[in-house]
């Protein structure tokens, strides 16, 4: 483990490098981030005592895990008959649920 003083020295040395050697984490610039989402994300990170970097790493890992899950096909479920009088159900979702 590097001492704090040495770490600070390293941080200064690599200040203009691509990688932030002090934390051993990559510095990135991200375009097209929704401002509102980022504001809320930052607030949540602070609330949980996390830095933006560590909170973002957690979020990215969760995102990757979620998308990487081997999904089965929805259409592997065989459709069935819902019976007479259900011919227009797909167009009546709002009416059925909300009475619109």
């Amino acid at each position: 483990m590097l001492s704090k003083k040495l770490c600070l020295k390293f941080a200064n040395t690599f200040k203009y490098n691509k990688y932030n050697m002090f934390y051993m984490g990559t510095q990135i610039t991200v375009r097209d981030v929704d401002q509102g989402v980022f504001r809320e994300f930052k607030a949540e990170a602070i609330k949980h005592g996390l830095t933006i970097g560590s909170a973002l790493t957690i979020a990215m890992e969760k995102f990757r895990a979620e998308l990487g899950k081997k999904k089965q096909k929805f259409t592997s479920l065989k459709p069935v008959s819902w019976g007479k009088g259900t011919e227009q159900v797909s167009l009546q979702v709002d009416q059925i649920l909300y009475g619109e």
Partner: protein
Amino acid sequence: MVNDLIFIDANIFLAYDNINDANHKKGLKILEEVEAGRYGDYFTSDYIFNEIVGVTFRKKGKERAVLLGEQVLKSVLVINVDDYLVREAWNIFSTTKLNLNLVDCTNLVMMKITGADFIATLDKEFTRINGLEVIS
């Protein structure tokens, strides 16, 4: 390169599941194309999940609602509508002149945030929104 994304509305899943539905063949075709990757990755929201299960429960019964709900959870990415999304959706809902309910507005916000260009829906109101490609 950014992958394409498509949001799937409740009516597509419901049309698929009911062979009696007038839009059953359309729902089947769209979902097969979606699963083949024609529009990139696909997802829906927990509000839409609630609509799928709710309508199925009322019209076909609990057993089918549970089966269909489980199938959605196993096969489709379901993103939660959080406080931020609700507030943004509320802003749209309270100002739009279009005939969209609050759930429809959460769909729009979710699409904006994820950068999704496509929406699979039978709801014609979405065709009136600029910048959306409606698959129906």
